[in-house]
């Protein structure tokens, strides 16, 4: 099959969990990577090594371990900056996850003054295919500031409806926040085109790249984003660590988020002054070992090459779309052309509820997600309560897709659907 990673067997060996068997002795078929990815040995080892040999708090410890720990933490920032093409390593801010990164932006915008200030009559534009993490913070912001929340609708084939782009993004628009790749529909959105329009009217562009950074070669500088968020656990890194990248000019203009240690320049009883970026937004002891693990993760992906990872995902996605099309009564939600989508494929099977599908698949060792995938509005748009979602990654094989398709056939027969 064209496009597959040439050393897929070797790559699979890097992920120890893929070798385990489940309770009933079945091999694991892990098709839930859009939910969280599995971790290669090098990430696990890097984290263990740090805890075993270098553990100390960063920045504030005047001893060798403190220096080693700080160096490893800051080296992780360098690695992330290189991985996403950040022009300046200080523009990379560590957060807890993508959700915290997006909330950091929405909250600090609520307190912003000057150009970035948001008030009555102003508009924030999102899309109907956002993850709840990129909806609720903007609802909170607009409600608190008396601003208006607006959104791009979706076409029947699961793309953004851009027919009213110029009306929707207008001189009242202060922020356009959208996902690069949908976690439900798989759609890859034309963020650069939308950013161009947003910048014409002076709005800032926030990109939720939680599903993009794992799958696409990402160059933040070329993307059109002013601020961009992603989460470590979906890029073969650990949980507990996320990234907010932002243009220095924008980050400098935003007020601090959390107050505390590390984010200050000096503190008096009546007033404080703040550190520059990135520390301004990193109050308190950060997730040190998680950041270091993320550094190892992006190094690992960088070594394989994101062009190659993307090609692999596309090949598997194409193969999966073909396989799913053979299952009677199955409808895919989202674009049907593998070139225009990421590796998350949500679908419905007539006559069987997603929970029941996931349960039967689980009994065969196949892990998928069932539910609304934190995208209730997008499900509502397509008139469904929930869906089943398979999602692949760099370690997914065509035979795992075969297992899924067979599992779905079995599910239909189990529920006595012709």
């Amino acid at each position, binding site marked *: 099959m064209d496009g597959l990673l040439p050393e897929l067997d070797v790559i699979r060996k890097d992920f120890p969990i893929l070798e385990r068997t489940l309770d009933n002795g079945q091999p694991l078929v892990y098709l839930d990577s859009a939910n969280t990815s599995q971790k290669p040995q090098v990430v696990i080892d890097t984290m263990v090594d740090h805890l075993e040999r270098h553990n100390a708090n960063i920045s504030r410890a005047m001893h060798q371990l403190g220096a080693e720990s700080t160096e490893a933490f800051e080296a992780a920032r360098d690695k992330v900056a290189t991985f996403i093409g950040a022009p300046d390593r200080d523009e990379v801010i560590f957060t807890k996850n993508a959700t915290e990164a997006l909330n950091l932006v929405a909250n600090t915008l609520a307190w912003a003054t000057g150009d970035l200030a948001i008030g009555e009559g102003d508009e924030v534009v999102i899309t109907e295919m956002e993850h709840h993490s990129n909806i609720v913070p903007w609802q909170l912001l607009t409600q608190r500031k008396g601003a208006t929340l607006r959104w791009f609708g979706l076409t029947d084939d699961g793309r953004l409806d851009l027919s009213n782009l110029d009306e929707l993004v207008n001189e009242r628009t202060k922020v356009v926040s959208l996902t690069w790749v949908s976690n439900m529909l798989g759609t890859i959105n034309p963020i650069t085109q939308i950013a161009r329009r947003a910048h014409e009217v002076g709005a800032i562009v926030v990109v939720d790249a939680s599903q993009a950074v794992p799958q696409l070669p990402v160059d933040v500088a070329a993307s059109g984003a002013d601020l961009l968020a992603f989460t470590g656990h979906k890029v073969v890194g650990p949980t507990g660590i996320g990234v907010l990248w932002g243009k220095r000019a924008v980050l400098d203009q935003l007020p601090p988020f959390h107050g505390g240690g590390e984010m200050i320049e000096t503190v008096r009883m009546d007033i404080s002054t703040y550190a520059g970026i990135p520390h301004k937004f990193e109050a308190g002891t950060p997730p040190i070992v998680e950041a270091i693990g993320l550094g190892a993760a992006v190094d690992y992906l960088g070594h394989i090459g994101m062009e190659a990872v993307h090609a692999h995902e596309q090949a598997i996605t194409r193969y999966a779309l073909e396989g799913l099309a053979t299952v009677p009564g199955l409808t895919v939600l989202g674009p049907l052309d593998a070139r225009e989508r990421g590796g998350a494929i949500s679908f419905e099977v007539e006559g069987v509820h*997603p*929970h*029941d599908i996931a*349960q039967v698949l689980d*009994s065969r060792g196949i892990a998928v997600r069932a*539910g*609304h995938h934190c995208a209730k509005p997008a499900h509502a748009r397509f008139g469904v*309560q*929930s869906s089943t979602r398979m999602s692949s990654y760099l370690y997914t094989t065509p035979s795992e897709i075969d297992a899924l398709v067979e599992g779905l056939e079995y599910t239909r027969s189990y*529920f006595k659907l012709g």
Partner: protein
Amino acid sequence: MSNELDALYQEIILDHYKHPHHQGLREPFEAEVHHVNPTCGDEVTLRVHVDDGVVSDVSYDAVGCSISQASTSVMADLVIGKPVDEAMSIHQEFLTLMQGKGTVVPDEDVLEDGIAFAGVAKFPARVKCALLSWMAWKDATTQAGASDATASKEI
């Protein structure tokens, strides 16, 4: 693997799923509630009609998986026609079964078709599905009782 699945998907459950009892929203009713399972988005709108201390009707409109749909149907069968107190104790018995992680032996005299859900208790992710409409019913019945109480006070 099929055995494990069969323990979950008892014939009784699949029967109720395919042919749910008491489905639809009916009048009269004293309370209507809407409950959702936030993890999967399954929903139920449920009405209760209490007449003279007896659950005289439970009607509903529900979207959900086989377990939640069947559980709603079985619940309606079990509580309709029962005095509120007795229905509440059936509710408690079902709750105990579901929360028992598979260690509770159900009493068929009390739970009737509900005993088929004993297997569900071993699947923690599905317990919420089985309980969705039971929780909705309890909520609605409590509300109906409250309005009943105020109504009788006014007399």
